[in-house]
C-alpha cells in the first residue's frame, strides 16, 4: 500500500523508487533528523510573516516551528537608494504587521503613505479619484519588499519556539497517505525532517503545490512588469501622496509614491515592449514614460467599461470615488533601477490537503494592477492563524482537516472574487475577449473549489 503510493508519485520520490520499500521504511523509522509540529517551506514575505505570526501566538507556544528558506539570510542596513521592488500594503496587512510588532521597524526606516488613488484611462480623458472616507486614514502604504522581509525576520528571531534555517532548500516532500499522519521533507543537503503540518509558502512555482497534485489553473499574460525608481518634476509645495494608474492599450502603468521627490514604477506591457524599454537609454525611457502617462490615444468604450469595473472594485474595498486631478511629470530615474518581471495568473483549486496548506503566491498569483498580490497572502496568514488557534484551542490536531477546510473556503471566498475582478479588468483593458467567457470559466472553478476536500479524497482513493 505504502509502496504503491510512492511509486505513483513519479519523479518526486525517485530515490525511494530506486531503493525500494526497504529503504523507505528505514527512512520512515530511523532517518528523520528532527520532527516539528509545523514546517513552513519558503521564507518570502508571506512565509516569514506567517512564521512570526504563529510564533507569537500564545496558544501555539508549545508547538515547535521550523522555517526553511532556500535563499541567504540578508542582514538589513538601510540602503541609500530605494530598491525597485516595492509593494502597496493595504490597511488590513498593515494591521497584521503591527500586531507582530514589525510595523515599528518599517516606520523607523521608511514608508510612504498613499492618501489618494488616481485612475485615468488613455482612450478618453475620464479620470476617477479614490480616497478614504475618513480623511486622514491612508488607502495604503508603499514599502520596499526587502524592508518588509527584514522587519518580520527581526521579529521572528524573538520567538523561542521558532527555528529558522537559511540556505535550506527542500528537495522533495512526502505527504502523508491514507495511513500516515506525518509529512516528510528531504533537504538538498541530505537532512530529513518530518512534521504534522506543512505550510507551503514557496511562491508561484510551489513544489508543495505540485506534490499535492492540486488542480492549478494558470496562464501567462505574455506581459512583463517593468519596474524602476523615478524622479518627479518638483512643483513648489507638491505633496506626493497619490498613487497614479493609467490604463494603456498594452496594460496599466502605475506610479507609487516613495518620497515627495521619488515614485516607484510598475509598468505592465507586452514582453516585446518591455524588452525595448529596458534597452532604451535612460533619458529616452523617461521620455517614453511621460508620453505613456500624458499622451493621447484613440477612444474606446471598452476601456470606459473597464474604468467602471475598477470603480466597483474599489468601492468594494471601501474607497468611494470623487473627481479628477492632473498627472505628475517624470524628470529622471535612479541609475540602473530598471528591471522587468513576468506576469501571470494562477489559482489552485485546493488550498489544503492532508497535512498540508498552501499560503500566498503558492496558492494564487494575480496581476499587479490592483496591488493586491502580497495583501492576499497576508490575508491568508491572518486567517490561517485564526483557524489554527481555533483548532488547537478546541483540542483538535494542527492537521485537522475539518478546521483547515474553514481556511480554504474562507480564503477562496475572499481571493477568488478579487482575482476575477482584477482579471476581468485586465482583460477588458487589454483584449477584446468577452470577459463573460472568463467569468464563466472561473465561476465553474469556484463551485468546484467548494468541494475540494471531496475531490482530494477521491483522488487519494484512486491511487
Amino acid at each position, binding site marked *: 500500500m505504502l509502496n504503491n503510493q510512492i511509486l505513483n508519485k513519479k519523479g518526486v520520490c525517485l530515490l525511494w523508487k530506486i531503493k525500494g520499500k526497504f529503504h523507505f521504511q528505514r527512512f520512515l523509522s530511523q532517518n528523520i533528523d528532527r520532527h516539528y509540529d509545523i514546517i513552513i517551506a519558503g521564507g518570502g514575505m508571506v512565509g516569514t510573516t506567517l512564521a512570526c505570526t504563529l510564533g507569537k501566538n500564545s496558544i501555539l507556544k508549545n508547538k515547535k516551528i521550523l522555517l526553511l528558506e532556500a535563499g541567504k539570510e540578508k542582514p538589513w542596513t538601510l540602503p541609500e537608494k530605494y530598491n525597485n521592488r516595492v509593494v502597496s500594503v493595504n490597511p488590513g496587512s498593515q494591521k497584521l504587521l503591527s500586531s507582530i510588532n514589525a510595523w515599528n521597524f518599517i516606520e523607523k526606516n521608511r514608508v510612504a503613505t498613499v492618501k489618494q488613488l488616481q485612475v485615468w484611462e488613455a482612450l478618453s480623458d475620464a479620470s476617477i479619484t479614490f480616497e478614504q472616507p475618513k480623511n486622514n486614514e491612508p488607502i495604503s502604504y508603499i514599502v520596499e519588499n526587502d524592508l518588509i522581509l527584514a522587519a518580520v525576520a527581526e521579529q521572528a528571531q524573538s520567538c523561542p519556539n521558532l527555528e529558522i534555517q537559511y540556505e535550506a532548500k527542500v528537495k522533495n516532500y512526502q505527504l502523508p497517505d491514507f495511513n500516515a499522519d506525518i509529512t516528510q521533507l528531504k533537504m538538498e543537503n541530505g537532512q530529513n525532517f518530518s512534521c504534522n503540518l506543512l505550510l507551503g509558502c514557496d511562491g508561484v512555482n510551489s513544489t508543495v503545490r505540485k506534490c499535492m497534485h492540486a488542480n492549478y489553473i494558470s496562464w501567462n499574460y505574455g506581459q512583463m512588469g517593468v519596474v524602476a525608481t523615478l524622479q518627479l518634476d518638483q512643483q513648489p509645495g507638491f505633496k506626493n501622496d497619490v498613487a497614479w494608474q493609467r490604463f494603456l492599450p498594452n496594460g496599466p502603468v502605475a506610479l507609487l509614491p516613495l518620497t515627495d521627490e521619488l515614485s516607484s514604477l510598475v509598468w505592465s506591457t507586452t514582453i516585446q515592449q518591455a524588452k525595448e524599454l529596458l534597452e532604451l537609454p535612460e533619458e529616452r525611457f523617461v521620455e517614453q514614460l511621460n508620453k505613456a502617462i500624458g499622451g493621447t490615444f484613440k477612444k474606446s468604450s471598452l476601456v470606459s467599461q473597464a474604468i467602471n469595473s475598477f470603480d466597483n472594485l474599489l468601492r468594494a474595498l471601501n474607497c468611494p470615488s470623487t473627481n479628477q486631478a492632473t498627472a505628475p511629470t517624470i524628470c529622471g530615474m535612479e541609475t540602473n533601477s530598471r528591471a522587468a518581471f513576468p506576469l501571470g495568473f494562477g489559482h489552485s483549486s485546493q488550498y489544503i490537503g492532508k497535512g498540508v496548506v498552501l499560503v500566498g503566491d503558492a496558492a494564487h498569483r494575480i496581476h499587479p494592477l490592483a496591488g493586491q498580490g502580497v495583501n492576499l497572502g497576508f490575508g491568508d496568514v491572518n486567517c490561517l492563524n485564526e483557524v489554527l488557534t481555533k483548532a488547537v484551542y*478546541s*483540542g483538535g490536531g494542527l492537521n485537522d482537516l475539518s478546521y483547515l477546510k474553514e481556511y480554504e473556503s474562507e480564503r477562496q471566498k475572499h481571493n477568488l472574487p478579487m482575482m476575477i475582478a482584477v482579471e476581468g479588468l485586465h482583460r477588458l483593458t487589454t483584449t477584446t475577449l468577452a470577459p463573460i467567457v472568463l467569468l464563466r470559466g472561473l465561476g465553474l472553478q469556484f463551485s468546484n473549489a467548494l468541494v475540494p476536500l471531496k475531490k482530494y479524497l477521491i483522488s487519494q482513493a484512486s491511487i
Partner: protein
Amino acid sequence: MTKFLRKCSNFTFIHLRLQSHSTTIDQQEIEQFKKLAKEWWHEFGSNKPLHSMNKLRVPFVRDGLINEGVVHEQNLKTSTPLKNLSILDVGCGGGILSEPLCRLGANVTGIDANPGIIDVAKKHAEKNHLNINYLFSSIEDHSKCHFEKYDSIVASEILEHVTEKEKFLSACSACLKPLGSIFITTINNTALASFLSIFVAETVLELVPKGIHQPDKFIEPYRLQRMLEDCNLKTKVIHGMFYNVFTNNWHLCSNNSVNYCIHAVKIC
C-alpha cells in the same frame, strides 16, 4: 492504585455478565456498537457526525468550565486551558471526544460498556501519544470507587441508548465533585427527531447504521432537566444543535426539537 483499578474493572466484567438486568447497560445497544469498532475513527465513516460534532461540543465543554471559574487564569490563553481538571467521559466509545479534551490538558478517564471499543480507544490514544485512562466499566460500578472524584463529566450521545436514565444520572452525579459540571448531548423525543434521526439518517441517507437509535429512549429537555434536578444537578444552559447533513457541520441554535446539549452543575 492501578492494580486496584484493574481489579475494579475485572469485577465489573463479572458483575455485568451476572447481573446485566440490574445495570443501566442495555446489552442489545452494546451489540449495535460492537459492529462499529473497526471503523470508529474513520472521519467520514458511520461516526462522521460524532467527529464533526467535536467542533461544537469541545468548545461547549471548554467554555462551560471557563464560565464556571474552574479554569486557572494562567491557562486561559494557552493550548491547555483544561490543565489539572479531571474529566470522566461516560460512554466514551473510541474516544472521539476524550482525545481533544486530553489535548486541552485535562486528566481524562473514559469508560464504556463495550470492551472491544475500549480496546480501539486505547490503541488510538497510544498511537497519538495521549495519556487517557480508558476503562471497561458501567457508570454505576465506576461510581462506587470514584465518589466525588471528578471536576467534570461528559456524557455525549449516550443517554439515548440508556433505558434507566435516573439510575445513570444519579451515578454520574455521585462521581462529580460539588460544583462540578456535567455536559450532556442527546436527542429530543419529538416526531421530528424520530423522523430525522431514524428515517432520514438511518434509512434515506444511511448516514449512521440502521437500528442504532430507538425513539422511545429519546428524552425531552424538560424531562431531562427534572431528572437532573432529582440528582442535585442544576441546569445552567440548554442549546439546540442543528446538523447540516450536506456540509457535515453542527451549529448551535435556539430550536432544541431534534438534538440538544445541556450543561448542569452539582449543587452542594
